[in-house]
Every structure is written in C-alpha cells, then in structure tokens.
C-alpha cells in the first residue's frame, strides 16, 4: 500500500498581528492541505478576517510566517495571488458598472483574457446571467454575494478563500452555494478555506476545520474526528440542583447550570459516559426527569468559545 502524504497549500506559523491596542491574532498556527474544504470558525472579533487579510497580503504581520503553495507569501505575492480567489466579508464592486463589466475589469486585473464566454459562464454559474448588463448598484445583497463568489472563479484559481459566502442569501441560495462549494472541491479539485458564522456550512461541507478565539487557535483537525471526540454534551434535568452539582463535581465532571428555572445541568462528555452519570445521580437519590444529548458543530463551537 502506498501512503500519499497530503501537500500543504497554506501553512501559517506563529502569526501575530496587533490592530491598535488589540491583539487581533496571537501566535496562530494553521495548515490547510490540498483539496481540503477547511472550515475556519470563530466568534465575531476572534481574528478570522484579520488572518484572512494577512493570507491575502492586505495586512502586514507583526511576526510569524505564511507560506502558500509552498512559497513565502512576502516574496511571491503576485504569483500566489494569481492562483487564489478571495471573497472577503462583504461583496463590494464598482457600483456604477454592470456585473459583466466588473468581471471583465477583474479579469484584466488578474492578467487573464476577458473572454465573453468565460465571463458569461461565470455569471451563469452563480445565477446572474440574466442580469449581466444591470449595474451592480441595482443588485440586492444576495445578488452581490453571488457575484462576489463568481469573481473568485474568474481566473480559475486553485485556492479559494470564502469569508461568510452564504451571508444574506435565502435558503435556496444557501443550498446553491453549498452545492457549488462542494462541486468546486469534488469536481475541480479546488482547495477551499471557508470562514462562516453559519456553522452548518462548515458541518455540511468542510472536511477539516479550526476554531480560533481572541486570535488564538483553540482546536484544529478533521471535522468528523473533532465531532466524535469532543462535541457531545448532555443536559440532565434534575430535582435537586445543588446536590447534583456537588455529586458530579466530586466525581470529576465539568458542569454548568442552565435553564430558565436553573434546573438543568450541562455536562460535556462523550455519549458512552451518559449512563454512568445517570447512575451516579440516581444512586444519590436525585431524580433525573430528562436526559438530552446533543451533537453538532454549533454546540461544540459554543462549548469551546
């Protein structure tokens, strides 16, 4: 059997950036491999956008290194950017120009021929072909969002960085974009970094992910493995909250009291441990009224941040 080692596309090592008095990114390490859909998670102000801007050479770094396609970003900026497509935060275009003209100009900026068929195909792929000749200022937020994704594909880059690509889209638009991301990865072999607050986007599309908070890496790894390992928590509804806290804490569990009536205990644990916790409570004459086990990325994300 031949083991193929995956090639790193983006390697971030010890990157820090201070914006004013705020440490936006703090000694961040990150690695994105070829053909990954890499989920990039973190609450507002966690440093996601700052990190993405540093990857795109829009922001300087205070320390650390960024290598993309195996080359240092600083010395190979133009070459690297020529093979990257980026959509950052919100789609802004030359509003006084049409969608078609915006894409034509961006082709020229990218140094690729502005072939009408290619531009029209791009517009079609994001459902905007019928509005090709409308000025962008007449577009809704969702349409601009789709055009924003379209412009990342114009020069057929190997690496896409999509920051909140489904923000502002209706449910069918969200589904279309998720399908597009998956097909770009599966059919065209694109490596994609997907930053999103819609945690479902990550859960449904990404194979690897990281979570950052206050500029620091909290966790990085395979989405499936991380969910299996960490993302369970169980809510026990009990009749004696104080006793339950005492008993479970003395047994070494990390707990939190939740619920409007403060009658529930949240315990972060694997699914296999739930019967054991139930047994401990029952053995201490605590009535367990209900048990609910949750597993999804959103819960995991909230647990960690």
């Amino acid at each position, binding site marked *: 059997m031949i083991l193929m080692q995956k090639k790193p596309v983006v390697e971030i090592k010890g990157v820090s950036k201070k914006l004013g008095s705020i440490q936006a990114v703090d000694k961040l390490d990150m690695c994105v491999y070829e053909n990954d859909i890499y989920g990039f998670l973190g609450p507002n102000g966690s440093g996601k956008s700052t990190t993405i*801007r540093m990857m795109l050479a829009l922001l300087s770094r205070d320390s650390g290194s960024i290598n993309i396609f195996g080359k240092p970003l600083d010395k190979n900026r133009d070459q690297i950017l020529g093979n990257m497509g980026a959509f950052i935060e919100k789609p802004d275009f030359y509003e006084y120009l049409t969608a078609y003209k915006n894409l034509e100009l961006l082709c020229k900026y990218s140094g690729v021929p502005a072939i009408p068929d290619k531009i029209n195909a791009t517009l079609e792929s994001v459902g905007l072909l019928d509005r090709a000749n409308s000025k962008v200022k007449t577009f809704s937020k969702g349409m601009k969002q789709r055009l924003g994704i379209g412009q990342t594909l114009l020069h057929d880059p190997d690496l896409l960085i999509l920051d909140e690509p489904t923000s502002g889209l209706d449910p069918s638009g969200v589904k279309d974009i998720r399908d597009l991301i998956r097909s770009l990865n599966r059919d065209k072999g694109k490596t994609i970094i997907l930053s999103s607050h819609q945690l479902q986007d990550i859960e449904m599309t990404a194979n690897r992910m990281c979570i950052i908070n206050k500029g620091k890496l909290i966790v990085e790894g395979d989405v499936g493995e991380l969910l299996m390992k960490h993302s369970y928590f169980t809510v026990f509804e009990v009749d004696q909250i104080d006793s339950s806290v005492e008993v479970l804490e003395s047994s070494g569990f990390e707990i939190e009291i939740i619920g409007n009536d403060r009658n529930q205990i949240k315990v972060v644990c694997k699914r296999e441990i739930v019967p054991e916790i139930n047994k401990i409570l029952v053995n201490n004459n605590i009535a367990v009224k209900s048990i609910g086990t949750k597993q999804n990325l959103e819960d995991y994300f909230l647990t960690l941040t």
Partner: protein
Amino acid sequence: MLRLIQIELYKIFKQKRSYIGFAALIVIILISQLAMIWEGEEMHGFITSNLSDAFFMQGNLVNGYLVTYLVLNFLWVHVPLLIVLVTADLISGEAQSGTFRIVLTRPVSRARFITAKYISAMVYTFVFMVIFSVLSLGAGLWIFGKGDLMVIFGTVNIFSENDVLWRFLLAFGYGFISMCTVAALSLLLSSLSNNSLAPILSTMAIIIVFTFISTLNLGIFGKIKPFLLTTYLDSWQMLFSYDVNLGDVFIDAFILCAHIFIFYGLTIFLFRKKDILT
C-alpha cells in the same frame, strides 16, 4: 502597465462625478466670456483710465487674447478644486467603497497600482487643461478675434498679436504641470485616507494656506516661501513680462516636477505599508 492605466481611465470616465469638473469649467468660462461681451469695453476702460491720459490707444484691445488672459487669472483658484474633486478620490474612493479588497487581492503590485492611478490622474488633468485652453483661447479668439495683448504685470506690457500665442501655449503647458502637482498632492493625501472627502478638503486647505503664506510679503514668511509648492504654481505669469526669462520659468517647472516625483515616491512608500482594513 498599459492595461492598468486603461482600467483606471475607464473607471474615471465612467463616473458621473468626473464630468462635474468639466461642466463647471465650461459654465465658468462661458459666463466669463459673456461678461466680457457685455461689459468688456467698460471694464477695460476702467482699468486703463489712468493710462489713457498718457497714451493713445487704438485697435481691438478687448480681444480673444485679453479675455483668455483674464479668464486664466480668474480661474487659477478654481481649477485646482475642480481637478482635486476627481483625483483626491482615486485612491480613498476605493478604500471607502471596499473595492480595494477585490483589486488588491489580484496579482497587481501596489506600486504598479499607484503608478497607474498617478498616470490616469495626469491624463485626466491633461484632458481638463485641453478643454480649458480650447474653451478659453479657442472660443475667446473665435468670439472676440485677435489683437495686441495689454497686460499689467509689474508694469504695463503690450505684446503684438504675433508675439502672444506662444506665451499662451507655454502658459497652458506650465498650468498643466502646476495642476499635476496639485493632483499628485491630492493622491498622496488620498492614499492616507479611507474616505473621499478628507483628501479633497485637506488638499484645498494646504493650497489655500500655502498660497496665503506665499503672497504675504513679510520677512518671517519670506524664508519659507521657496519651500512652498504654491510659490511656483503661478509662475506662468512670468511669461507675460516683457523681457521674459525662460530659464526662470523652466527652473520653476522643474521644481514642480520634483514635487510630483517626491509625492509619487512617498505615496508608493506609504501605500506599500498600508493595512487594508476597509
């Protein structure tokens, strides 16, 4: 580079605001010329009333050359503002509208991006000056005809009509360099700002304050006058002195060109380090 310049020019001339300056210029010049049609003789008579006691004046003195000379003097304060309305927005406008994010993530170096902006601003200024010269001189000659030019620049200078056109062509050429210097200053300030209004206002504030200092003949300001760019902006007027020293005019033009290159270099230096946060 040519491709980038084409893109920048396309963007400039696709925006309605770029034509506001042209429209204002056309209106001001036409109003000035209409005023000269109605009041020109009277105004000229008033200005030269003291001279008529000593000199006998004959011929078409309110002619296209005189009107152009007056329009040049009237407009020298307004033209920089009309040009800066567009050039000061070229970089900061992209920051304000967020388009930096899609343009600067393309394989275009920041130095090339700024160079294209500078060249486009110069082209816009050139077009502006061509319209200015054609409207003021061309239309002036067409409406008022040719004649000798009488100007008061230090002393009374009267130039025969055959000795005037080259002075105007050089004056417009010098004016182009002056306006390019103002445009370069506005681009430097534009690169430091994330909104459109601040560089327009700050450029005009600098021009007004420097002009004020340049025109004050006080000893304390005399020492700093050579270091103010406004000292050299109106050196085209030297072309209308009787014994014009072209060497002095070219030295002043060279000093303005040096300003342009310093502003350009500073813009690239600062913009390469600029964090794009908009």
